[in-house]
């Protein structure tokens, strides 16, 4: 009897920490509008690289996956409010974000690039410094709350920054000529260039790696609530195993046609 009460109490304690994880279910917050990382259809099914990483992780942890779709700039507040257990949404690990939440080891790493209309002044630039200088007075689109937004706020303060809730909205404005350029990670921009709307656009030939400026982060990781150290340890171990055995790399090849997985150290 005493044992029963104790185990009940233990259950209760665990469930206050993270309501859903206690039931063998991992609820994952994701944006659902950031191809090919995370896309959600009208039925609420999530597909993409992050969906695959989430599914791999859940299999490894022997838990059931449950995706919660929500705008990117609201993901961290929602995690802190315990609306879900983890964030898997192409989120770069940055110092600012680390003050709010914890991150797993990085599981992927991408180059950040600009896209601009073919033949425009920006399109021909070949080095970072000239590029950042020539952004002065130009309308540049970024997604709200991303490392890209923070990077440009810091390194190109004279640019007229336009922030969008979703990448789709930014692409519409890029296609209609409301903005002169857009800054995002290469995969997201490639997705735009492959669409009919993107036919008059090109990547600017400058790759900005996350080592260039700390605002660009340390690769992409799984966001975990700060107090949830036990879950972080489990996820780190599972991720490292999944990266080492090539599962994450295979998922990456499926969505990006190249391996963007980040070796675990």
């Amino acid at each position, binding site marked *: 009897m005493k044992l029963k009460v104790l185990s009940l109490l233990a259950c209760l304690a665990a469930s206050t920490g993270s309501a859903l994880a206690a039931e063998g279910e991992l609820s994952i917050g994701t944006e659902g509008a950031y191809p090919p990382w995370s896309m959600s259809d009208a039925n609420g099914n999530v597909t993409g690289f992050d969906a695959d990483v989430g599914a791999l992780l859940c299999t490894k942890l022997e838990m059931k996956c449950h995706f919660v779709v929500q705008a990117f700039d609201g993901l961290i507040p929602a995690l802190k409010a315990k609306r879900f257990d983890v964030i898997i949404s192409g989120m770069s690990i940055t110092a600012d974000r680390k003050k709010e939440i914890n991150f797993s080891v990085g599981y992927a790493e991408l180059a950040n690039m600009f896209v601009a209309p073919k033949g425009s002044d920006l399109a021909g630039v070949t080095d970072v410094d000239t590029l950042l200088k020539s952004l002065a007075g130009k309308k540049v689109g970024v997604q709200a709350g991303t490392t890209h937004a923070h990077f440009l*706020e810091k390194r190109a303060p004279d640019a007229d920054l336009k922030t969008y809730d979703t990448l789709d909205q930014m692409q519409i404005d890029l296609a209609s000529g409301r903005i002169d350029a857009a800054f995002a990670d290469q995969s997201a921009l490639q997705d735009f260039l492959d669409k009919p709307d993107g036919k008059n656009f090109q990547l600017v030939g400058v790759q900005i790696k996350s080592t260039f400026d700390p605002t660009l982060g340390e690769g992409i990781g799984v966001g975990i609530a700060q107090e949830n150290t036990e879950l972080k340890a489990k996820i780190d171990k599972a991720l490292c195993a999944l990266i080492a055995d090539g599962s994450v790399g295979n998922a990456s090849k499926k969505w990006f046609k190249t391996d963007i997985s980040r070796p675990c150290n």
Partner: protein
Amino acid sequence: MELIQLAVPVLLKGLWVTAALTLVSVLIGFNLGLGLALMRLSSNAFAAGFAKYYSNVFRGTPLLVQIFIFYYGLGEVSLIRDNAVLWWVISDGSRCAVLALALNTAAYTSEILRGGLMSVPAGLVEAAQACGMSRILRFRRIEFPLAIRQALPAYGNELILVVKGTSLASTITVLEITGYAKRLMSQTFAIFEIFAIAGVLYLVVNLLLIAIIRSIERYLMRHEAQARQAISTPRIDGSAVI
């Protein structure tokens, strides 16, 4: 404290944009609304029908939907993109927001003013006619002043709704109070504090607006204030009347 020092100057920058959006859309919206109210009350069936459907369509759809239709929807129409003037309006987020807010508030304003105009006693209009006043003079001297007096409390409400409606412009890249607040949110993650300050700014603007409307109301109703004072003045025998 540090947060307030960071957030307040940024949000104040947004306050000017919010004020400008409100002012321009109300200026356009009031005039359009007055025109629509007159059309609605005119004997021309086509004009009255148009005004009625206009007001139903704009009052019956959410402002956010209207803003998205104007900004993202019309931005895809090549006819508009090829027309320099139309594209000038649609290409810019804040001009698009003003367009949507002005057309939206025009619909509500037309209903409010229609109510005011209908409350003008027919006898007064007939008396003015009998004096030989022209239609325009009659409208300027008799109908409009009486209508606006009736409509002002409801119109004050509409002004407040416009101020709050400007926050939706943040969804189409306009950096007004809410737009800056969202940007600060993703920089500091101090959501509660940032949006509390943003809320206070809206509150201050609206309280100011309410005070202005009240004083205009009092000015327009000054004859009634005098009448009330006359009633409540104690009589000579000292017994006060309610």
